[in-house]
Each structure stands twice: as structure tokens, then as C-alpha cells.
């Protein structure tokens, strides 16, 4: 096996405008885990030593560096940790680390950025930390995780530059509007 060189999806410096910071994130290893029929309990048991379980729809569980995010029906993304030994026997396991690009959006007004791109209500009262959603970032597939300080945004790696451009553009819109109205 040749040693492959890991490269980030995008080489972009963080951008801060209107008190909101957009940056390329490195959440670590990402693995999709889809329990085989009847194996939900076995999967939950394997996740327990990590301090995690199998997440309910629209939620994410976090324990230190480890987290697991509901993605679609019967599937979750295990992030930041290796797959527990024995998981292959209980679930379909696919490594997505190189398939997804990750961005962090931080700041009290981060939801205002996504309000222009994502067709769901992301205000903190409706979508508090611990929430996750599968939706669209404009026209791109999106896995969205609410964190204490903002959002983790996952989309296909092949769309990394477009996602960055669209998020960056909204930051500029918000900053320009602030300048005109304040």
C-alpha cells in the first residue's frame, strides 16, 4: 500500500466579518455507520465506551473529541475517533474522511449567514447545541451540526470551493448591510 499524503479540501485563510468567523475545519476522521437490521442495540453498545450512543434524528452527541451525528434514516457519522473494534459485524461502515469538506462558522450571528443558504429555522431557540440537520447549503448537500459557539458544516469535498465562496459571499453581504444601516 502506498502512503498517501493527506491534504485539506481547501487552502483558505479564515475570514472574519461582522463578528462572524468562517474557517476550514478539521474534525478528524469521519465514518458513516449504518446499523444492519436488528443490530441497533449492538451498535449502541460498541459506541458506549466512547461516551456515545446512536443519535436520534436531527441530533448529535458529543464526548470530548468524539461525536456522532445523525445523517439520514438508519445512518450516523462518527467523527473525530477511530471506528470501535467489531463495528463491521454490526453495521455498514464507510470511511468518509476524504469525501467531505468541513467548515466552522463561529460567532453570535452565525445563524444569520446560514439563514440565506439553508431552508430551515436555525435560530438558537429552535436549533440549540446538540441539534443536527440534513438539508441543503443552497444547492449543495449539507450535514449541519450546531455547536456551542456556532456551526460545523459538512458538504461533499468536490464542492468545497463553491461552498466556501457562497458562505464567504454572505459574510460580505452582512458586513455591507451593517455598514449601510449603522
Amino acid at each position: 500500500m502506498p502512503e498517501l499524503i493527506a491534504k485539506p479540501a481547501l487552502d483558505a485563510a479564515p475570514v472574519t466579518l461582522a463578528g462572524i468567523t468562517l474557517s476550514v475545519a478539521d474534525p478528524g476522521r469521519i465514518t458513516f455507520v449504518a446499523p444492519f437490521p436488528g443490530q441497533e442495540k449492538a451498535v449502541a453498545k460498541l459506541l458506549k465506551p466512547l461516551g456515545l450512543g446512536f443519535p436520534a434524528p436531527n441530533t448529535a452527541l458529543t464526548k470530548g473529541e468524539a461525536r456522532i451525528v445523525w445523517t439520514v434514516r438508519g445512518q450516523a457519522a462518527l467523527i473525530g475517533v477511530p471506528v470501535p473494534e467489531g463495528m463491521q459485524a454490526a453495521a455498514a461502515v464507510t470511511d468518509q474522511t476524504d469525501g467531505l469538506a468541513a467548515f466552522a462558522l463561529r460567532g453570535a450571528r452565525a445563524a444569520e449567514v446560514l439563514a440565506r443558504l439553508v431552508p430551515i429555522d436555525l435560530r438558537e431557540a429552535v436549533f440549540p447545541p446538540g441539534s443536527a440537520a440534513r438539508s441543503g447549503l443552497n444547492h449543495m448537500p449539507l450535514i449541519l451540526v450546531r455547536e456551542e459557539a456556532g456551526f460545523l458544516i459538512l458538504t461533499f469535498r468536490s464542492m468545497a470551493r463553491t461552498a466556501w465562496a457562497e458562505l464567504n459571499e454572505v459574510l460580505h453581504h452582512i458586513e455591507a448591510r451593517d455598514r449601510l444601516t449603522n
Partner: protein
Amino acid sequence: MRLNCPLCGSRDRREFYYRGAADYLDRPEPDAPPEAWDNYLHLRDNPMGVTKDLWYHDQGCTSWLLVTRNTLTHEILDVKLVAEAGE
């Protein structure tokens, strides 16, 4: 228009793909007579009122949904996961 996905919650129409009448769930056996296949593929009712159709939540949970709606009032009456509708 919004659909209340049983998994994702209330979502905008743009997240969904419309497949067609729920008749597509009743696929005939491979050796069924040509009339059954003709009916399955081509013959549709066009109800004025309650109808059932299939939608795919492609920008969401990737589930097939069985949607009951009223063509007269545009009311969405029910949304079920196809995967669970038969149980």
C-alpha cells in the same frame, strides 16, 4: 408548500423530489398479465380531492415518503415513511 417529514420535521418543497402517484408502490409480479403492467405504468386517476403520491426527501433524510394531500384545497393531510407504511 411544505411537507412534514416524519424524520426531519417541516421542510420546504425544494428539499423534495416528486415521483408520482402512490400506485408505483404496487408493482405487479414479473409474470403478471400485460393489462396489469399497462395499468401500473400508464393508467392514472386524476382525483379532484384526496390523493396519495410519492415524494423523495433527497436534500434531507433520503427517505421515500407517502404523502396524502387534497388537490382541491392543497392541504397536506398526512406524510408517512414508505419504509414503515407497510408494517
